[in-house]
């Protein structure tokens, strides 16, 4: 092979390698940040159902809230970090709140793959069974079990993820106690 051809090949290989690293970095960044956030937001010693579900009811956002950038001061949050690799997780949310609330699900790549707000839920409680997309036979069994338990089956695109309930607090001084009660209406439990 001529030296010129070797140089061209080396150049092409270098570009290919650089492009691969570029793509890998862009793909991995949200996943790494999400994983870090899930650990930071809900430490292992938080209110724990078991290792598959961790739940947190943080206080109203203040200047001291520094886990996630751009926190909204208008919202009370409650959240669950879940791992569906060993089985489904049941979610119940009944904030009984007169204004806006929503329950949002995030995959491990940061995608908000489902959100249900008070209007869509007609202010009724949310009862979900979160499960992984599985093979058809297993999915049918999961679906039947979810229906039997009176739950809507939600298929998650990734085993690990995060659920975030938002309750809009118009008057943080007057509504703090009621908001805390609404937060506590969120329950996430691993299905045995």
């Amino acid at each position, binding site marked *: 092979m001529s030296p010129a051809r070797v140089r061209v090949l*080396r150049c092409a290989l*270098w*570009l290919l*390698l*650089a*492009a*691969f*690293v*570029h*793509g*890998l*970095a*862009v*793909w991995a*960044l*949200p996943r790494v*940040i*999400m994983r870090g*956030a899930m650990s930071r937001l809900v430490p292992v010693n938080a209110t724990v159902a078991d290792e598959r579900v961790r739940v947190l009811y943080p206080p*109203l*956002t*203040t*200047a001291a*809230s*520094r886990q*996630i*950038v*751009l*926190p*909204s*001061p*208008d919202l009370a949050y409650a959240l669950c970090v879940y791992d569906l690799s060993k089985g489904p997780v049941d979610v119940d949310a009944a904030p009984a709140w007169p204004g*806006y609330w*929503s329950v*949002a699900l*995030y995959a491990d*790549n*940061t*995608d*908000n*793959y489902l*959100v249900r*707000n008070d*209007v869509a839920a007609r202010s009724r409680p949310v009862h979900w069974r979160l499960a992984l997309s599985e093979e058809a036979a297993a999915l049918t069994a999961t679906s039947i079990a979810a229906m039997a338990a009176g739950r809507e089956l939600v298929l998650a*695109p990734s085993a690990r993820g*995060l659920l*975030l309930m938002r309750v*809009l607090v*118009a*008057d*943080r*001084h007057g509504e703090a106690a009621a908001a805390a009660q609404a937060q506590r209406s969120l329950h996430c439990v691993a299905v045995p």
Partner: protein
Amino acid sequence: MFAARLWFCLSALVFGLGSAWCVVRYGGSGTVAAGTWQSQVLAGSVHADPYTRARVALGGLLALGPEETVYYVASTDDSGKPLSARCHYRVTGPAPVARWWSVTAYADDRFLFADPQHRYSINNASPGLLPGQVMLVTGPTPSAAGPWLPTPGNSGLLLVLRLYQPGPAVRASVAALTPLRIQAEEACP
């Protein structure tokens, strides 16, 4: 020979990582402007491209999808000067069409300014606003011109406008927002 191979691999690694960082940090794909306000069109969406995902992970993790909430960020005033916590700005315009809107002030580290009275945002339920209008003032000291968002310290300033359940025009096109004006109240160093 070993040194040449090491240089070959390391330079590709550095170039790959550096170019990824530059595109994510400074690239503008997927960003739409309404006046001086910028919005990531697909923030939080399952249809987001990898660059938007990376950008949102860095700058606004756990965003809701655009059908539920639209986020606009301003880091400059209407004349294009970077916002500063030391200056007073008047934010004015027609109230956005949405079930709920709010304007929140953040320091340039993207966290809230310290305020013992927890005055972090002005929203459509805040006292002192005229119906259908936004009129607020940010700055280190209060202003008689309108409701005040305190911005103590010497840092930069970011203003974030959130629209929960936005109206049909903004849902159809994020750029359709009639932008709120951001004007410095006095000469700002």
